[in-house]
C-alpha cells in the first residue's frame, strides 16, 4: 500500500488559483466519494485551508491515482490542476510537517492542526478514511503534539496583534475585564483591538479627530465613540491605550499621564503606539505602572519569535524523521505475512 499526497499550496499557486480549488465543508463528502472511486484508491482525505488544498490517499497505484485526481479537480474547477505530489514515504513526511506547522506560511502556527483534524473527521464521516489513513492521521496528530511540546516551534507571537496580546497578558494576566481606548481609527489599531477582543477584552472606546469615523469603528467592534477632545479623560478608565493618529506632535506625554496614574493606584497602563510619527513620548515608559511599546518594538519582538522558530526547524525535522520511520515500519508490517498471520 502506498500513501499519496497531491495538492497546491501558497508556494505553488497564487491566491486566485487556490480560491478556485478550495473545498467547502459541505462539498467535501461528494469530492471524497469521487476521489475514492478512482481506480486503485482505497481511501482519501481532503485538506482545504486558505493556504493549501491537498488530497491524501491510500493507493495501490499512485500514478493512476494521481491521474484520476487531476481529472476530477480539473472537471470541478475548469482549470488544469497544477498539482505537486509526493509518494511514500515523502507523503507521510509531508503530512507530518503540515500538521506540525512546518509547512505553513508562518512557521509553527497551530491553527493548521485543527484544520487537519477537521479534514480527517469529515473523511471519517464520509467513510473514506481507511485503516491506513486512520493510522496515518492519528500518527500525524501525535507527531504535531510532540513537536509542539518538545521544541519551541510555537514559541512567541509572530504578528503585531499577537505581540500586543502577549504583552498585555504579561502585564494584566486575565484580559477579560480590561478596557481599551483607541486613539485614532486606523486599520492597524483596529486589527490590534480585534486581537485583544479575541482574547477576552470586553470594553472598547474609540476616539478620533473625525467623530463619524470613530462612531463607525466603534459600531464595528462593539464599542463606544467619544469626541477627540475628551480622550485624556477617558484614559483614566482605560487599561490599554492604542494610539494611531496623524498628530504632528506628541499626544501622550508624561505631563498628561502623571495625574491619571496618580489616581489609578496599582492599575497599570499599557500604551501601544502604532503611529508614525509616534504619538507617545518615550519618556512615559519610565513612569511607574506605564508600559510603552511602539510599532518598531512590536515588530522586533515578532521578528525575534520567528528567528527562534526558524532555529527550531532542524530539531523538528529530526523528530519528524524518527516518526516517519516508525510509521513506515507499521506500513511495511501490513505486507509482512508473519504479521498478517
Amino acid at each position, binding site marked *: 500500500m502506498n500513501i499519496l499526497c497531491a495538492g497546491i499550496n501558497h508556494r505553488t499557486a497564487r491566491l486566485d488559483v487556490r480560491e478556485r480549488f478550495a473545498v467547502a465543508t459541505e462539498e467535501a463528502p461528494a469530492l471524497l466519494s469521487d476521489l475514492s472511486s478512482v481506480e486503485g484508491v482505497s481511501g482519501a482525505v481532503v485538506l482545504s485551508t486558505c493556504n493549501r488544498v491537498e488530497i491524501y490517499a491510500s493507493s495501490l497505484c499512485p500514478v493512476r491515482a494521481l491521474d484520476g485526481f487531476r481529472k476530477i479537480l480539473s472537471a470541478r474547477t475548469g482549470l488544469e490542476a497544477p498539482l505537486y505530489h509526493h509518494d511514500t514515504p515523502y507523503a507521510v513526511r509531508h503530512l507530518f510537517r503540515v500538521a506540525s506547522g512546518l509547512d505553513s506560511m508562518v512557521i509553527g502556527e497551530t491553527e493548521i492542526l485543527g484544520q487537519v483534524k477537521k479534514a480527517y473527521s469529515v473523511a471519517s464521516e464520509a467513510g473514506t478514511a481507511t485503516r491506513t489513513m486512520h493510522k496515518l492521521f492519528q500518527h500525524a496528530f501525535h507527531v504535531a503534539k510532540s513537536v509542539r511540546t518538545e521544541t519551541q516551534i510555537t514559541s512567541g507571537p509572530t504578528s503585531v496583534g499577537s505581540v500586543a496580546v502577549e504583552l498585555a497578558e*504579561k*502585564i494584566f494576566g486575565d484580559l477579560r475585564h480590561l478596557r481599551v481606548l483607541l486613539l485614532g481609527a486606523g486599520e492597524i489599531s483596529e486589527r490590534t483591538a480585534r486581537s485583544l477582543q479575541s482574547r477576552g477584552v470586553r470594553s472598547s472606546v474609540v476616539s478620533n479627530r473625525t467623530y463619524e469615523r470613530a462612531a463607525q469603528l466603534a459600531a464595528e467592534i462593539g464599542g463606544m465613540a467619544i469626541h477627540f477632545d475628551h480622550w485624556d479623560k477617558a484614559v483614566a478608565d482605560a487599561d490599554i491605550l492604542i494610539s494611531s493618529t496623524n498628530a504632528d506632535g506628541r499626544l501622550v506625554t508624561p505631563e498628561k499621564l502623571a495625574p491619571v496614574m496618580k489616581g489609578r*493606584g*496599582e492599575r*497599570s497602563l499599557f500604551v501601544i503606539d502604532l503611529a508614525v510619527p509616534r504619538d507617545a513620548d518615550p519618556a512615559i515608559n519610565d513612569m*511607574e*505602572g506605564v508600559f510603552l511599546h511602539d510599532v518598531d518594538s512590536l515588530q*522586533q519582538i515578532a521578528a525575534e519569535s520567528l528567528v527562534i522558530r526558524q532555529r527550531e526547524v532542524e530539531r523538528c525535522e529530526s523528530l519528524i524523521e524518527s516518526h516517519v520511520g516508525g510509521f513506515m515500519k507499521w506500513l511495511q508490517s501490513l505486507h509482512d505475512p508473519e504479521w498478517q498471520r
Partner: protein
Amino acid sequence: MERAALIGSSLCYLFALGHTLFSLFKGRFRPGRFNVAAVAAGASLQGWYLTLLGSQLHACPIRTLPQVLVFLGWSIALFYLAIGTSYRLSLMGAFTAPVVLLLQVAAVFIPAGEIDPVRGVDPWIETHASLSLVAYGALGLSCIAGLMYLVQERQLKSRRPSAIFHDLPPVITLAVTVRRLLLAGFVVLTIGFAAGFLARTPIPNVKICFSALIWLLYAGLLADSLSGRLGNRRTAQGAMLVFLLALLLLPVIQRLSTLG
C-alpha cells in the same frame, strides 16, 4: 545521618538550579514539575535533617546560626510549595532553589559558634523563635517574588525582552503575590513577637530594638502598599530590601540571643 540528609537536600536544590540554568541556556525552559519535585525533595530532606537534630536536642533545632539558616531555607521552600505551585507561578521554583541553596551553603561554612543556652527551657521563646523563622520564610519568598516582579517589569519595559520574559508570570500576579506573602509573613511575625513578650526569660534590649526595627519596616511597607501609597515596583523593592536587611541582622540577633 543528619549530615547525609543536609547534603542530599543541598543536591536537590543544586539539581533544580542546574536544570533551570541548562534549560534557560538552551532556550527550552518549561516551568513546572521538575523544579517542584526538586524543591519538594529538598524540603523533605531538610525536614528530616531538622527532625533528627530536634530529637537529639530535645528542642526546636534553631540554637546555632547554621541551624537557623537551614530552618529559614526550609520555611522558604515550604511556602514556595504551598503558594508557588497553587498560584502556578512558573519559574518561582527556579528563583527559590538558589536562595535556599545559598542559605544551606552558608550554613555549612559558617562556624556554629556558641549554642543558645536559653532555648529548650522556655516554651514561649521556642514558639517565638520558630514562628519568627516561619514568618521569614514567607517574607523571604516575598523577596523572591519581588525580584521576579522587577525582572519581569524590566522585560516589559524593554524593547527586546529576552527568553525569560515568556516564562515569567504576569507582573500583576507577581505584585499580588508579593503583597499576600508580605501580609502572611507579617501576621506570623507579629504572633511570634507577641510570644517573645510572653517569655519569662529576659531578652536583651538591643535584640528587641533590632527586631522592632524590622517589624516596623514591614508594618510601614505593608501599610503604604495596601493603602495604594506605594506602587507595585516600590513594594517589590521594599520587600527585597527589608528582607535583605533582616538577613544581614540575623547573625547579630543570633549572637545577642546566645549572650542571653
